[in-house]
């Protein structure tokens, strides 16, 4: 039985195309991937991401538990601050990537991928057993909307008295949105400025509709999973299951910047420390096709006639108007400018390693 978010009827009502995604019936597109993608880059887009999982960690050892389970340094967070992090297994493999929100020293909120939420929660619970802390799967208690794009703040501000420009990048606040209590976080998965809005499921439809109304004359479009994927890929944000999983480490996935080996012990630390000392044998790279044909997820990567890996994510990039992707390559082939081949349905097509992110916005904060 597929799950539905509290916004399912709203999506159907405006003609969304619905697909099965990680056990959820989710909107893949409304007006189309290209207009939706462009709206996010040039105006704003509104995504229903209520399928994401949420786990609350509450108790005296809350910080201790999150510190032990994740690679980033949770002790650096102040109340209401958030960080991107990784749940690693003993081998240093990526169980999931997540956002860690510190609400206060004894209360953390973890936001995890829908496809992994059951697995993550079991893992977290197992490690919580020996500590003075309670882990609760609160996924059903939250709807989550992502309002993304250069006009996101302008649009959300119309529905709030809170000075939103006082919420810095990767901080959150309790904010009333059109009179409804929400947690508003300056985060997202598109490479743009924007907000993620946590609310009670019963309020989701009201907030969704009000945002679409006040955003209409500012170019706001409802956006589906297709635009979510292409915007994140242009920003070279990793997707669990494509660009990393339990068999790849954060360093191989290019996420070494969230691995803080010096912070004290955490699950997978020894394996990651060893890999850092010994050096990587493979690494994810960004690539651009030198031909017009797009590379797609799973297409074989060929070097000197031999298959050496697969495209982990590949797609046309609507804003950049190029065909881009991420792929794992043997370390000796990962230098920027290195050429390799991708097998596109039987035909070998040239690609070139490029710097990531492919797309970088002009940032207001930094």
């Amino acid at each position, binding site marked *: 039985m597929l799950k539905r978010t509290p916004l399912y009827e709203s999506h159907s009502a405006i003609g969304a195309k619905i697909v099965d995604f990680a056990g959820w019936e989710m909107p893949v597109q409304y007006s189309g991937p290209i207009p939706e*993608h462009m709206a996010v880059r040039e105006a704003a887009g509104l995504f229903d991401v209520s399928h994401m999982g949420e786990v609350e960690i509450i108790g005296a050892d809350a910080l201790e538990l999150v510190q032990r389970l994740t690679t980033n340094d949770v002790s650096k967070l102040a109340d209401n601050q958030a960080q991107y992090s990784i749940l690693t297994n003993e081998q240093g493999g990526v169980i999931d990537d997540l956002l860690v929100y510190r609400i206060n020293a004894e209360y953390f909120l973890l936001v995890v991928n829908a496809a992994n939420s059951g697995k993550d929660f079991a893992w977290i619970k197992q490690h919580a057993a020996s500590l003075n802390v309670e882990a609760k799967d609160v996924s059903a208690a939250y709807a989550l909307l992502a309002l993304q794009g250069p006009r996101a703040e302008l649009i959300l501000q119309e529905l709030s008295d809170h000075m939103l420009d006082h919420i810095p990048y990767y901080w959150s606040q309790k904010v009333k949105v059109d009179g409804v209590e929400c947690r508003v976080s300056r985060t997202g998965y598109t490479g743009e400025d924007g907000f993620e809005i946590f609310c009670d499921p019963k309020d989701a439809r009201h907030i969704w509709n009000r945002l679409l109304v006040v955003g209409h004359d500012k170019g706001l479009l409802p956006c589906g999973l297709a635009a979510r994927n292409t915007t994140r890929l242009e920003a070279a944000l990793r997707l669990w299951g494509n660009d990393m999983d339990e068999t790849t480490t954060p360093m191989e996935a290019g996420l070494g910047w969230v691995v803080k080996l010096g912070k004290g012990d955490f699950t997978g630390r020894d394996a990651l420390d060893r890999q850092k000392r010994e050096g990587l044998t493979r690494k994810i790279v960004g690539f651009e096709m030198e031909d017009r044909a797009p590379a797609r997820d799973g297409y074989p990567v060929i070097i000197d006639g031999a298959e050496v890996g697969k495209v982990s994510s590949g*797609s046309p990039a609507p804003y950049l108007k190029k065909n881009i992707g991420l792929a794992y390559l043997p370390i000796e082939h990962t230098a920027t400018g290195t050429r390799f081949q991708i097998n596109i349905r039987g035909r070998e097509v040239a690609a070139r390693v490029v710097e990531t992110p492919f797309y970088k916005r002009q940032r207001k904060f930094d």
Partner: protein
Amino acid sequence: MANTPEELSYTKDHEWVRVKGDSATIGITDHAQNQLGDVVYVELPKVGEKFESGEPFGSVESVKAVSEIYMPLGGEVTEMNAALADSPELVNEDPYGKGWMIELKIADSSEIDGLLSAAEYEDYLKEEASE
């Protein structure tokens, strides 16, 4: 409602065929381009390549997906629409005109009888939609 010109023939894979003597022009239908969304890339065979009917001869890609295009009739490719390399959007804008894909020298004209008429194709679309 999709546009289905009366004078063309169709397949259940949503290709259209314009038969003229022993040659046929082939493209994808208005319904097909509508389902695909904005076309960003079209892969076509080279002139001189030969295909059996039902064989994939190329693909049409949107941002989200790759769809193969199948030969409505067997034969040899005599022309391909080179304009689609620079302007794949022609497939969306004018599927039965500037968005044509290949021209074919028909190998076996008896295969023409197996194609659908415009009315039959429209019925097929209705059936598909009600499933």
